[in-house]
């Protein structure tokens, strides 16, 4: 018989994990954990449900960053007004996970711990250069999402000994925009053939920062750094984006899957996906630029 614990604080949760010494498991929504238990992939003696810890269900929008608590569901993310108007890629990615009733339970933090190479939450987190706040017996630290993934389905956070309490990402100072694009064998309840999240920051008519994240084109969610570097200093537009897309194609190394798509297809479709996501991000950044301009003149 499994024990089900509902700690009221992070320290209490850590105390339980310590007591079970590897036999307890953190759950939030539990939507990934339950099938794992049924299949015998995990057999915890204790489930530690963190969704009742005060504050973990909060989305905090500060001046410089956004912090999403570990108990915030994908539905709550997708319905958040600030995110809806400023971080559309995150909203779109949240709405791509499973289905509405799965989004009502599943969390961004949980999605990150699963570390699947195509996890929608992971790809968008990578593009946002998010970090997770990890608590364990040694204290708390921030771990960049880029350093979270150990391999397909393996993360450096151990949910039997550590707790992710929040996901945090920086709000750029300059006008910025995000883009999201996904190709799948159908619209929902399916892992993507390809997904892509982009972030662009503009200043003086040029791109000053670019982030392009993709899945599944490598064993873990992937940052297309060569394309990003190329974009810096370029004026946003079809020409630059098309070249960036070509560079992404060159640095990606996808695999073939019988049920989804071949490596060849993924490589061939990738440029359009990247182009679309960059175009979206650029349009949104320019809208903000326009808004700023109007605010200044008005």
């Amino acid at each position, binding site marked *: *018989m*499994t*024990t*089900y614990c*509902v700690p009221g604080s992070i320290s209490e949760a850590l105390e339980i994990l310590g007591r079970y010494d590897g036999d307890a498991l953190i*759950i939030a*929504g*539990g*939507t990934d*954990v*339950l*099938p794992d*238990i*049924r299949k015998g992939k995990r057999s*915890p003696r204790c*489930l530690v*449900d963190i*969704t009742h810890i005060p504050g973990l269900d909060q989305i905090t929008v500060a001046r410089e960053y956004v912090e999403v608590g570990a108990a915030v569901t994908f*539905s709550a993310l997708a319905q958040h007004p600030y995110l809806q108007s400023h971080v559309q890629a995150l909203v779109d990615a949240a*709405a791509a996970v*499973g*289905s*509405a*009733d*799965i989004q*009502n*339970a599943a969390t961004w933090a949980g999605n990150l711990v699963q570390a699947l190479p195509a996890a929608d939450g992971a790809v968008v987190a990578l593009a946002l250069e998010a970090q997770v706040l990890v608590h364990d017996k040694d204290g708390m630290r921030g771990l960049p999402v880029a350093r979270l993934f150990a391999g397909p389905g393996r993360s450096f956070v151990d949910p039997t000994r550590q707790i992710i309490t929040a996901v945090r990402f920086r709000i750029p100072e300059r006008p910025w925009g995000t883009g999201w694009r996904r*190709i799948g*064998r*159908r*619209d*929902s*309840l*399916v*892992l993507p*053939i390809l997904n892509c999240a982009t972030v662009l920051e503009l200043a003086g008519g040029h791109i000053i920062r670019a982030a392009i994240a993709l899945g599944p084109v490598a064993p873990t969610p992937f940052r297309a750094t060569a394309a990003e570097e190329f974009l810096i200093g370029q004026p946003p537009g079809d020409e630059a984006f098309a070249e960036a897309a070509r560079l992404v194609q060159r640095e990606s190394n996808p695999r073939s899957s*019988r*049920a989804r*798509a*071949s490596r060849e*297809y993924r490589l*061939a*479709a990738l*440029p*359009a*996906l990247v182009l679309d996501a960059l175009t979206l991000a650029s349009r949104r950044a320019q809208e903000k630029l326009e808004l700023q301009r109007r605010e200044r003149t008005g």
Partner: protein
Amino acid sequence: MPISFTVNHRPATTAADPAVPLLRVLREELGLTGTKQGCDEEGECGACTVLLDGQPVRACLTAVGKVAGRTVLTVEGLGGADHLDSVQEAFIAAGAVQCGYCTPGMLMAAKALLDREPNPSEIDILDALDGHLCRCTGYASIIRAVKLAAAPPPTIPSGADRRADSVDKVTGRARYVEDIPMPAMLYAAVLRSPHPHARLLTLTTDRAAQMPGVVRVFTAADIPGINGFPSYSQEEPVLTPVGQTVRMIGAPVALLVAQTPQAAAAALKNIEANYEVLPHTYEVDEALDTGAYPIAGTKNILTTFQVRHGDIDSAMGSAAEVVAARYETAYLAHGAIEREAVLGYLDDESRITVIGGNHEPHNQQGYIADVLGLQREQVRVIQPPTGGSFGSRQDPWPFVAVGLMVYHLRQPVRLVYTRRESFDAAPKRHPYKTDIRIGATRDGRLTAIQENILANTGAYDSGGQFIPNFAVTASGGPYRWQAVDATATTVYTNGCKAGQFRGFGTSQAVFATECALDELVQRLRMDPLEFRLQNRLLQGERSFLGYPVADSLGFEQALEALRPHYDAYSAEAKAFNEESDGSMRRAVGLAGMWYRFGKSGTLRVEAYAELARDGGLVIYCSAPDYGQGTNTSMNQIAAAALGVPRENVTLVNADSARVPDSGIQGASRATFFVGGAVSLAAENLKNAILGVAAEMLDVAPDQLQLTGAGVTATGDPTRLVTLVEIAREFDRIGKSRRLAGVFDLSDRFPAGMRPEYLPLFVTGAQVAQVQVDLRTGEARVVRVAAAHDVGRVVNRTDARGQVEGAIVMGLGAALMEEYLPGETTGFRNYYLPTIKAIPQMDIVLVEVPSIFSPLGVKGLGEAPLLPATPAIINGISRAIGVRLRTIPATPERVLAAILGKP
């Protein structure tokens, strides 16, 4: 520590392990079986959705520990039969309940949406219902239902078309096989071959039999009668004996019965089976190779059928344009949301009684009796509410397996496939490879058709022996040909056995013909609609099969009904393309079809109508309802013939012990044949009742009127006798209160006439507007218009629902569905269309009555699937300017075609 929570406004407590899914506690402990399970508790189907504190969640992914102190609402808590919630009312009124298996999950998701957003937009509705799989409705009626529930005040229509069983299905009261409680129930699990082809060398069951909770293990040696059901499937054993070969992954080797499903599943691993692995293939071309390893049949061939007439060489020679190509379709799974589930027990007459969704209770009765070495009368088969079939539930295997276990154990036994098992072992749709050559003259007259179809029947016959005839017949279409040479062959491979699937071998053939026709039309630079009109077969003309078709053909009417849609879609596509930057392109595809319905069983079908002693009007017939709605249509037909309201008619349907045998219900024959017999029986009963009442009232029968309660004299309602009094009078004068209705076509189609199947045809056509991203190959279907000749409409809501469901099923086949033996494990990698994939649908029901039916009806259930896939593929081919000949048209295939890769 027990977990307490609130369910449906009442307190509940469970001692279950908190890591157990809420779904199991609801169904198994609390008896709330309204919440359904359609996948292996993996969140892949949405049938299990309940509200947790008002929010929809999947009960199979929710640890019961999580609900402590919280509030759960299931479908049973939504509203009972006498106080339905408006969303339940709306689902019934909009015809959104077909088999009903997805319904509880859909209702809960819709309820939460409407509570949150009383006036939801179309997008809100799609978002809320997304990820809930429905295989029956094509989702359109469900969307209409949610809109109807939101429209204040709910404008609920009168309900002439209301489904007979829909109140049970929206309240969670309908008892499907998995929901039926039985004392002392035992649970079965099946040991299946992990190899696609192997010889079973040894089989040791002792260790498994000693496991905790295990009652008994059965092998081939335990079969008292025939190890198989050869009249349905040649050379398919119930259980493979030691020394013989298993021919597919999932082939059954042993049955294990235990006290709980968990104990059965756990013990299965302890049966030791040793195999010698043999070479295998999933491809027909390889199986036909001269050096191919023998799988079954003669040279791996099951059956062949050919149609040949006219001078093929000169007809082909006279063509100005000839299209010759190979078309390929994939293995498809039926994807009914209820898994294969059968329950057996001894009834109060000690008969081996088996309950399970099927198409032919009397045939199943016969298969079971043969396997057990019993007389038919010692076996009974009953149709319960069933969560969809599409042909899958014709498989006798689960019936004979359960019969065997009950025979030995004399105790109730339930067998439920896992979803994985359903993919591994339940029959599939035959993949085809069709080499086709067709020609036409410069002015667009079809000359000749030459084709060779190879149908992959997989490891076992499973009814595949009849496929070639259906394939060839359908491939000719409602067109005039000068010469025909068409052959189809079913070939054994080591893929999953292929069996009955909506359309029974015709869709794949129509796909090849209609795509080839479109290619020909494009080469001739003609209009696809005009071309089909010009070449259409006329009533009485020699058909593709070489003989004339006597019945009416509504093909012309269907095409004409489509024309405005075709024109509008084409104009819209043109405007779209002019606006587009070139990355997206729209185009319109068209396809026609004919379908020979009514194939199976005899030409003579019987039904009874009875005036019960209590004055009830009761119909006895066999038209199994697996979700398509025959319970309703038979009720409607009987009520119409009797001239009474539907509520006054009781239906006893599809119970081998109580109703006459109507043969296998397939090929869309129910309304035509059984409906015909029901109508005649009801008419006979009405006349008999009026005759007796006339004597009692001393009024001429034509001056009398039958109502639900009695008979009154026209114009003088005070002169009446009740049905109870009339029943008593029947008994007094010794007149039978049960009358037969016999619908018999044997004299219309005398023996010795050429076809072994009836020349009864339905026709129709569809147009699809598609949109393709030319850079990624992603294709969407934007709009579909369908026009089908149904003879005469019995239930407009249901007829529309059948067409919409078929279109979306055809869309799945066109764009996404493909079963891969051994690799497809669940709905996560078998892609049924989800709600956001559906097009706008315009449905036209054309009514050109059949001359052979007293009701004028024709068969509808399967026909609309046939043109959907080729219409969509023709649209994509036109959009990308390259011919697609292999489906599904995944983004990968479409992009490869655009880029000119093979």
